[in-house]
């Protein structure tokens, strides 16, 4: 909720800034300028499974399928914060380097049932597996601004690499199979270290769009970026090493998959210049 409020305030600022800028009629002189800044926001992660793995093997006497149901894109929330560096090659074209620390989450659900042939009291368990992977992302983007006014919409695209920092996992579970595990009421396991199950590096493409408000001493952007990673997320060699301790007891093993995510973030940036007066604003000729 706090994050949402922040975005609202930023959007309001940007909106009022736009009106203010249009009123004064300034243009932004960015060529050969370097901007440094900080950014932060939230992200949503999606999973694209490529290989299915399971611990529980089906036999003619079994009814369990061991299938995982992944949570929808919007349910896998995370956050990120980082730095912003850009260099404007021309008035409208910039190179942006935006290193950030990002936490991505992805969840999936499994369920199992065994019959009690003696007491007619079947045993069921439904589990929500919650994973959080934290990584350092290093995106390198080309940014194109559509305007040289103080209020400037832009698009950007490029490549990124990421380095996994750590990963954790816990499982919420209840005893009713109803395609829902209420985290408020369900039991849960302890937090287990998943780090060694996740590959150290990944790489991919990123693209996004946003809007920036330039003032004389700072700029503020609201943007959204989409990232798609080409690398495998799970370490195949360690898949069954069971660093979490959940493999046998909770019949859990990670599938192989690729990860994509979309973020929404705010960036505060400052132009770097040797002169005392920055003078990035010039009176518009029109």
């Amino acid at each position, binding site marked *: 909720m706090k994050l949402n409020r922040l975005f609202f305030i930023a959007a309001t600022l940007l909106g009022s800034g736009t009106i203010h800028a249009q009123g004064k009629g300034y243009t932004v002189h960015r060529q050969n300028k370097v901007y440094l800044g900080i950014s932060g926001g939230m992200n949503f992660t999606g999973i694209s499974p490529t290989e299915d793995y399971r*611990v*529980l*093997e089906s036999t003619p006497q079994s009814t369990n399928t061991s299938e995982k149901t992944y949570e929808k894109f919007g349910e896998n929330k995370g956050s990120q914060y980082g730095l912003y560096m850009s260099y404007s090659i021309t008035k409208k074209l910039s190179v942006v380097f935006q290193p950030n620390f990002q936490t991505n989450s992805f969840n999936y659900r499994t369920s199992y049932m065994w019959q009690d042939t003696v007491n007619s009291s079947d045993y069921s368990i439904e589990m929500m597996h919650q994973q959080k992977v934290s990584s350092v992302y290093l995106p*390198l983007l080309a940014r194109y601004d559509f305007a040289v006014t103080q209020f400037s919409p832009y698009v950007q695209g490029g490549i990124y690499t990421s380095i996994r920092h750590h990963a954790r996992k816990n499982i919420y579970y209840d005893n009713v199979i109803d395609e829902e595990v209420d985290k408020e009421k369900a039991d849960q396991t302890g937090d287990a270290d998943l780090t060694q199950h996740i590959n150290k*590096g990944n*790489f991919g493409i990123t693209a996004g769009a946003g809007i920036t408000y330039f003032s004389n001493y700072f700029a503020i952007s609201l943007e959204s970026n989409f990232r798609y990673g080409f690398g495998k997320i799970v*370490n195949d060699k360690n898949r069954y090493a069971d660093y979490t301790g959940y493999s046998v007891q909770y019949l859990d093993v990670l599938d192989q998959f690729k990860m994509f995510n979309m973020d929404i973030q705010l960036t505060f940036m400052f132009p770097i210049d040797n002169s005392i007066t920055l003078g990035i604003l010039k009176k518009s000729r029109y």
Partner: protein
Amino acid sequence: MKQFIYCILILVAVFGSAGCKKNDAKPEDAFIKVYDDSNGNKHFHPLGITTSESGDGYITVSAFDGWRIQIMKINNAGEFQWNYELPSNYVNAVPNIIKKNGQNYIICMDAVGLFTYVLKIDEATQATVEVSSFSDVLYPTYVYNSGQHIYLQNYDRMSFETGIHELSGDLTSVQNSGSVNIFTDVEEQIVEHITYTGDRIPFFISTTQSQNYIVMNGYYNYSFSMIFLNPDLSFAGVYNGEGFNTGATAISPLNGNNFALARFSYDNLYFNPNAALTPTTIDIASSIPAQGQSELDPKKPVLIKDLSISGTTYKAYLSSTRSNQLLISLYEPSGGTLVGKKYLGKNIPVVASDFIQTEDGGLNILVQAKIMGSIDRIALMKLSKEQLEAIVE
């Protein structure tokens, strides 16, 4: 400013290379598989694993519903192929699947007559074929193939004796028999053992490396003892237990009369990877020098086998900790020096049943896994060659 861009490009390229690291793991390299059955009241107790007759996977033998028998075939990646539950008259499969002329056999018992059957596992029909039965051999408890002979251990409830029988090459007849007197009735313990209602008793048969003595772990003279027998199955010597509370748990032959040994004494477990035993002695088992293993659970099985890693053969002890982990301990065979340990699992009730080295240099460990804290199932844990090499590094 160009330097600024170059620096960023170099940074991205360097870190990007980490993401491109090749990972060529295959599904059969390492895995954990638990074999399902929808009946939650069915409790499985795996007993042994061996290579399949066709060489394309593995055969496991397990007990379920107490003493009934299930045979299962899996492929090299641990994937289920087929299983077969034997008719209810065949019960109490004893540990060790016997491989003879490339075919697999199990020894089991008649549910009513308590006598012994030899059954051949027929992979083509996914069933078993009765090879022979021995009406005089009651309560079979263990079978062992020394390479030269096949020995069968049993308990004779009529004479209160532990018997040992040498089977013919085609497993159809008993060539030679011997026995030792217990002097007391241990049928209750035997029944609890074969029906899995009490503690499992570490029966075993082995030989010295030159096979000039046979070693049998069983009941003898009011105690649970390790008995040495001559090749004609006559008594040679014994390491007596203190009643039923101490004795040997597992052995594996080294050179001469030396063995890698594990023994128990009340609530403690002791290892000696190079124990010099005297086959003709009459001694007590607790006198065999050994190192205490306080973290290990003496109620759970200990398995000792040869394990070849990077061209060196080690004595591998597979045991269970009191905190529900499996522990592989590797000892250098000549000096008995501990070269490495590996813990498997984390606080999961897993009981080791058998292990076998795979053709790709890995290790298949057959275990009983208690999933969801209560459901006993057959499970297979495969360690890759690289994981084994990491133990001795």
